[in-house]
């Protein structure tokens, strides 16, 4: 995987007229950075954003919620889709304490790929709830770790309480071809959703 660096900028072709974005989200350590790196045409980049977050479950004696400043690392990559359109992929942490950042990140996004580790499904509950609540079109992608047990799709669906329209895809995100197929399958799913609405 290419390292996150402040290398020379890799410019977009001057004919590009605008960009779209897709979010890659999920709990810490699920493989977001790896997936973004496998898909990106440029060395993946990282930027840090400071965020004032309301503390979780911590109240001081005055009854005011405890506030703290958190730094969120965002990994992202890029794909030039045509002479006029570029796609950005933002690795977006899914934990509840990062939700203030979501408003900015999700605005205008085509959709989100929610990476899931089937060995620790409960860590994905937060982010799936958020995606449903914000009505962001999404698919679940199970990252196939070497020791990932192959659960039947129906069991995963039930455990994650997914709505029928949400596809469950599987991918070893370290494999560039598999990652590419995952992205195509996801956009194909978005297309089906848009067809229904049109």
């Amino acid at each position, binding site marked *: 995987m290419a390292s996150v660096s*402040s290398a020379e*900028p890799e*410019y*977009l*072709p*001057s004919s*590009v*007229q*605008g*960009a*779209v*974005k897709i979010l890659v989200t999920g709990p810490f350590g699920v493989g977001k950075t790896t997936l973004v790196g496998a898909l990106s045409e440029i060395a993946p*980049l*990282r*930027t*840090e*954003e*400071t965020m004032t977050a309301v503390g979780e479950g911590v109240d001081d004696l005055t009854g005011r919620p405890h506030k703290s*400043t958190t730094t969120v690392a*965002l990994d*992202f990559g*890029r*794909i*030039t*889709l*045509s002479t006029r*359109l*570029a*796609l*950005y992929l*933002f690795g977006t942490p899914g934990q509840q304490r990062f939700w203030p950042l979501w408003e*900015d*990140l999700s*605005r*205008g996004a*085509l959709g989100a790929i929610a990476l899931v580790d089937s060995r620790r499904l409960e860590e994905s509950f937060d982010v799936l709830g958020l995606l449903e609540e914000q009505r962001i079109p999404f698919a679940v992608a199970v990252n196939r770790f070497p020791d990932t047990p192959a659960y039947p799709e129906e069991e995963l669906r039930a455990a994650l309480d997914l709505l029928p329209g949400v596809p469950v895809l599987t991918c070893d995100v370290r494999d560039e*071809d598999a990652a*590419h197929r995952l*992205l*195509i399958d996801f*956009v*194909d799913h*978005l*297309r089906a959703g*848009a*067809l229904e*609405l*049109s």
Partner: protein
Amino acid sequence: MSRSPVRPYVITGGRSRTGRNVLEFESLVRTVPGVRVDPLVVNREQLTILELCRELLSIAEVAAHLGLPISVLKVLVGDLWELGAVQVLPPVRPAERAPLALIEEVLVGLRQLR
């Protein structure tokens, strides 16, 4: 010396939002060719942005290359935009363009990559 957490907001003159112009993570920025800015109205970071953006880059990429938070970049680039020193290409939004046509354009682009 380690970077102080307040420094970025000193760079932006204490502001966290810029004026009327809206910038997003994936907004694309390019310095207007041959533009000359009064060094008294821009700061060092903004001069670096003008130099870096001689060709198209997103706000997020500029932030990563300069090691500044995206929120800070939005303010600095917003000022340069108001000065007419940079050109900004806003994101292509499914809400503003037929979603089906846009998604199909993405799909065609992805399929052509392999």
